[in-house]
């Protein structure tokens, strides 16, 4: 996938970059999809930061007499099999979803970027080797790779972050490699070199600022995928373990009692759908604003 970056001014100052962020935000809120996405994502972040303010109960507080209930005034979204309040668990679950997805995607970006830069800059054997290793990792559907690694690592929150990061690294390595290749071909890189700039200087002050925007867009669009994979792994019992209120664990719990009370499954499904929809709308709108040519970056990852 060859993506050419817009030839930005190599010496973009901090101020002009801030200005760029401000105009992007302005454009974002002027598009319905962007506004809806932004509102959902900001709302989720608020819930994640201060779940205690919004949740009516503690996530593990049990009222055994109120087991498997439907929505009521006491428990707006009902209760689970040991009488825990579903609404409270879902609210505390926002934090779990983000605490897994954000570090996973961010580390995939950083590691993939480093690998991509080294491969594109060094070329030759190192490059070919990297391409093959990434091909092997991408020979598995992301969920299956994560699952196989988790089966050996053992289920835990930290391990879920690690396996999702590993599943996502190849795409970042590939895209950064292509971006560095095309940035390298620009004349201003050659000019810098002629002026005696070191490789590190060229990479950090000239290549990176040019290739980061598309990578951030990719990251924004991978966050919902990471959330979906985490919840999926936890649903299968291989991810975040109970009693941690992960959405996947809530789904799994509800699934086991689906005949008696389907409410937990219904509400956990709804919050998952709203979350993925919000992040996707935000990510796609950002992509369309920053660079519509990047639409090829949309990929299904689960």
């Amino acid at each position, binding site marked *: 996938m060859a993506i050419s970056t817009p030839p930005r001014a190599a010496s973009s100052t901090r101020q002009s970059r801030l200005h760029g962020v401000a105009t992007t935000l302005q454009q974002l809120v002027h598009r319905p999809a962007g506004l809806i996405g932004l509102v959902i994502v900001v709302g989720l972040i608020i819930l994640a930061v201060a779940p205690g303010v919004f949740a009516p109960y503690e996530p593990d507080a049990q009222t055994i007499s109120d087991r498997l209930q439907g929505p009521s005034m006491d428990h707006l979204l009902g209760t689970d099999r040991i009488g825990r309040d579903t609404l409270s668990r879902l609210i505390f679950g926002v934090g779990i979803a983000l605490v897994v997805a954000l570090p996973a995607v961010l580390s995939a970006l950083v590691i993939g970027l480093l690998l991509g830069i080294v491969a594109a800059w060094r070329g030759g054997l190192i490059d070919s080797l990297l391409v093959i290793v990434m091909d092997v990792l991408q020979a598995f559907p992301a969920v*299956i790779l994560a699952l196989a690694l988790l*089966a050996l690592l053992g289920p835990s929150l930290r391990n879920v972050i690690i396996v999702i990061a590993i599943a996502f690294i190849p795409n970042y390595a590939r895209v950064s490699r292509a971006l560095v290749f095309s940035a390298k071909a620009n004349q201003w890189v050659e000019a810098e070199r002629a002026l005696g700039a070191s490789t590190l200087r060229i990479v950090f002050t000239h290549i990176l600022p040019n290739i980061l925007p598309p990578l951030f867009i990719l990251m924004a669009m991978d966050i919902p995928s990471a959330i979906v994979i985490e919840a999926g792994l936890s649903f299968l019992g291989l991810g975040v373990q109970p009693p941690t209120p992960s959405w996947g664990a809530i789904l799994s719990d509800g699934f086991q009692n689906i005949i008696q009370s389907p409410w937990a499954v219904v509400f956990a499904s709804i919050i998952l759908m709203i979350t993925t929809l919000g992040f996707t709308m935000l990510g796609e709108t950002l992509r369309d604003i920053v660079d519509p040519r990047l639409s090829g970056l949309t990929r299904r990852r689960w």
Partner: protein
Amino acid sequence: MGAYLLRRLIMTVLVIVLVMAFLGALVHIIPGDPVTLMLGPRATPDLIAQVRSQMELDQPVYTQVGHFMIRAAQGDLGVDFVTDTSVMDLVIQALPPTLTLAALSLILAAIFGIPLGILSATRPNSLLDRVTAVFSVSMITIPPYVAGLLLLVIFAVRLKALPSIGSGDISDPVDYFLHLILPVTALAITWIGYIARLVRSSMLEVLNADYIRTARAYGLSDRRVAYKYALRNAIIPTIAVLGVAFGSLIGVAIFVEVIFARAGLGMLVFDAIQSRNYPLVRGGVLAIAILFVLANLVADLTYQIVDPRIRVRSGSSS
């Protein structure tokens, strides 16, 4: 084209060989002892040693990986020591239900997705187009297990209209078919949205091309232009995406198989992980990876063959 094809095929074989090596070595890359994991804390040291030697874990890593690869290439994935059956036989048994599930989901996705995309593209910015756009994004972002669980709640638990457990009786076609409806729909939803969007955008791209304007100038009706010229071009990326979708569905099928308690590759891997049956996990994952790689290869080649423009371009990109 010939050179490209050859290079692509060689790469595919290389990747599959390396995937085997990766899976063979995985147990050593990752900390922890699979035998202790498998047998649990109550296993005696003697038993652990016996199983280790049975699984050849007491030999050097490269010997183990080498043996695994040579045998896997000959179609021998080892023996499942829980049931004492060949892993290969278990994998082959699990293939047809998963392939059926994935294939039917794709057909369903195409049947709904393509017409939706055409309708939106021929009436851009109309109410119908906007509604379809919202529905498409929503469908794309629904996780497959959420779709499965919600369908289960609505049609099996509440309405009790459709069966929810098992694969049905294959000798009774109606029963078998009824058991397929919910799982197939759950898997298809994402791709209906995806295909609708893809068909719309690629048709619009073509409809703005010069030759379409020429065709219109010659007095051809909008209908004729849309269906005879624009659709033909828009269908190419769609066909390629069907290949990618097939690969993805083989992986995602695990959720739907677990939710609806269906036999299949995903269920095989899930059960094997639950019982810590490492050789079976490895065999199942290998089968999924091979299908995934082949589906992507087919998608890629279809794209190359059907669209001559890509062929010219492929010389420069790797």
